[in-house]
């Protein structure tokens, strides 16, 4: 079982995007600007911690659009709670944290 850890900034962004209705990986990438190598592993991690769930797109819809069925993610209530905690924490940090080196 993965140990409990606070959510990082990338994770927060991804959960946010899913919550905002970007339901599958490619959409999440577009919304967050994060690379596929971050988005998919994070979604896998969040699913393992039950912060998101996934389901397959209905076959009929997929056939109608002429494409393979997509995997849609949704944020669980537990995930939503964790997300809002993390957002608050990040806001506090944003006030005090020094700017990252090399960007100032």
């Amino acid at each position: 079982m993965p140990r409990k850890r606070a959510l990082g900034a990338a994770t927060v962004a991804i959960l946010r995007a899913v919550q905002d209705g970007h339901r599958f990986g490619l959409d999440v990438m577009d919304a967050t600007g994060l690379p596929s190598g971050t988005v998919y592993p994070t979604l896998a991690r969040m699913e393992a911690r039950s912060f998101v769930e996934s389901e397959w797109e209905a076959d009929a819809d997929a056939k109608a659009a002429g494409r393979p069925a997509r995997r849609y993610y949704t944020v669980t209530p537990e995930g939503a709670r964790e997300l809002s905690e993390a957002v608050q924490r990040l806001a506090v940090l944003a006030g005090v944290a020094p700017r990252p080196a090399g960007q100032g």
Partner: protein
Amino acid sequence: MQRLLLRRWARRVPADHRARWIHEWEAELAALESRTADHSFLARTWAVTRFTLGAGRHAAELARLYDSDNREMTMMTTMGQDLRFAARSFARTPGFTFVAVLTLAMGIGATTTMFSVLDGVLLRPLPYHAPESLVMVGSTSQRFPGLAPVSPGDFNDWRERNTTFDHMIATEWITVDLVDGDRPARISSAAVSHGFFEMLGVPPLLGRGITPADDLEGAPPVVVLSYHLWQQRYGGDPDIVGRRIETADRVFTAVGVMPESFVHPEALWSEDVEIWVPTSQSGSNMTARGGRFLQVMGRLTPDATLFSARQEMSAIASALEEEYPTNAGRQVLIEPLRGETIGDVGQALVLLMGAVAMLLLIACVNVANLFMARAADRRREMAVRTALGAADGRIRAQLLTEGVALSLAGGAAGIVLAYMGVGVFRALNPGGIPRIDAVVVDARILAFAFIVSVVTGIAFALAPALRAAGPSALTALRDGARSGTGVAGVRFRNTLVAAELALAVVLLVGAGLFVNSFLRLQNVDPGFDPADVVAMSVTLNDRYETSEERTLFHDGFLERVAALPGVSATAYASALPLAGDRYLTALNIEGREVDASNPDVAEYTMVGADYFAALRIEIAAGRAFTVLDDAGAARVAVVNEAFVRRYWPGEEPVGRRFAMGRTDPEWYTVVGVAEDVHRVDLTSPIEPEIYFSAPQWGVETAQVVARTDGRNGSTIEAMRAAVAEMDPTLPVEFETMEGYVSATVNQPQFYTQLFSVFAFTALLLAAVGVYGTMSYTVGQRTREMGIRLALGAEASAVTAMVVRQGAAIAIGGLIVGLLGAGTLARLLESFLFGVGAHDPVTYAAGALFLGTTAMLACWIPARRAGRADPMGALRAD
């Protein structure tokens, strides 16, 4: 492509997630592809590839989450993280990264270059079928030890009587003067007995090789051409087989062309052969027992060994000794072809490889030192990571990853250097390095460079890695803001610098010995004055039938040359010193006992009257030749001092007589003694030599020497024009006597240059090492220096203190280095001339040179220490 990657990664995904994982990625890829459908092909491929790379990490993450046993995946991910981290940390310290990569590139580049040469020359198999069973067979005797040439009579008997060889063949160097086409050309060629190409296992590209029928006396003349000659001179004519090939004295028929890759075995270490003719066309008597001029090669039967072949051939040679008195004391020597082609050069290359390996070691030590300094600076970082729960192993792995990444970068740059290095090596080839054309940078070499890089990276990162982690790492946090270096760390780094200096001393002394020996070589007096002397060779063909006609041509030509402006003396000679030609004769010296198994011999040359004047060879006693010593006069000779020393020691040579061989009735009277001249090279002892007056012999093939007033170029052109005026079909070749002299020192010069470059690089790297360590130490101790100065210490005393510490390191390194050099110098002995391997002056000079450099390198940081601002230093931190 992307689908292929997906399938590969799918295997890593835990089984109960696999189907879903594949499905998801296919759907996502499909979505991406439809979205990018209107992009250019390149943009689309790039986007899809980049996107797909995430699938690998997704698979890895799933494996980590659901399959904790999957170690491989965990390792792959952590290694990726380490690499990314390393890249970031190198980017933050560009100065360090640049110096480290450059140092490694020099070390790895030099090592890879030398290995390419070693590999091409020594390690690759010879370009023949089953080369291990090919051997050289030579005649040997007490007087001519080693693989001496073989007489045709011996060769015929050997070939007939042996049972241990599948093939035994003979070759002879000849030159063929082609006159077809617009320009006559002299082509270096070989006469070979039948079975030559079959023995080497290389079939002709077109036509056939040399058959037994071609070998018979009176057979129609045929030639086999090299690919190069076929292309260059005959334009790759597809109907070349059957075409007439015209030389000055006969018309050959081309019967075959060898493939482009074929190299004549002896051409592996000498100039290339472009034409092969049967031995029946060489003009040599192929049944004689007197002259020994054939190179014999053979292929052993599959059952035979070198030992059994030697046994059998030795029995045959003993039988021949019984049968023919001229074979008294003649034995047979058999050596593998491989060893014979490589010879001394192999030893030299191994030596250079050793030197270059030392250079790499120095580079390693330098980077290790840089790494140690960097590790000391990063102790806080490591301590923080340890405190936050990073495992020791993880931190070590991180440092090792950094080391290997750095050295792979160095290796990549090194390969670029090696490409250039091999080009330079081939361009500088002094001649005599066999198979230099086989030297290339290819997959083998790249593999070598890769392995060297990885090993190098681990080697220099290991020590810092072992020191970085462990319980003591945490003390760095307690030290407060000061990122200190422990006493043990300082001592270790000082040891590294001392080791580096020791290696540099070894290389410096080695280079010193080479330079010393080379200077002595250059100061050897060849016995003649090569400056401003032009040498030309011209070969008369069969149109000049009689000896009189040939002499007439040469006399007429000499007259023209003598009349040229600026030419002060000119003469012909049958062979020139240091030009490679030698002729030996047995002697019957009046009043000396004849020993059949150990006859008196001397080299001989036929020279024109002005020869001694043209080359400025001093006459020590008696007189030189004059125009009066012609065919009608009494037979005369001039001998050299070595002749007098061996055959008439302490006696008056002028007026004494000798004959050539035991049967020649003609007696020659010595009229003068010439000073010794080096004929073979500048280092071999000078053998007895006889000069005959050319007009008394008739001039057959001749070299013409002309002393000019310094305008060699215009004289050469005038001489070429003079020949063309007399007979435009004759090929001529020019060289200067200085060219012949410098050709004999080309190889030593080449080794000296290479070794010096290595030693200089080592010196530079060692200096950088000393400077880096000392200035780092001084930087660390600024506070201490400040306190000393504040308490009233003189700036000079502080400087002296730092210099003293540097000197202690340097002296330690020098002592170890001198001892090491003394031990290793024995390997150089066979390359040295006129200087011992333990020449004290060279050792002292090497030590002094390096010591001075090391002192200079620590004086700069020491001066900085003396100028430390006391108040600033105290306030720091």
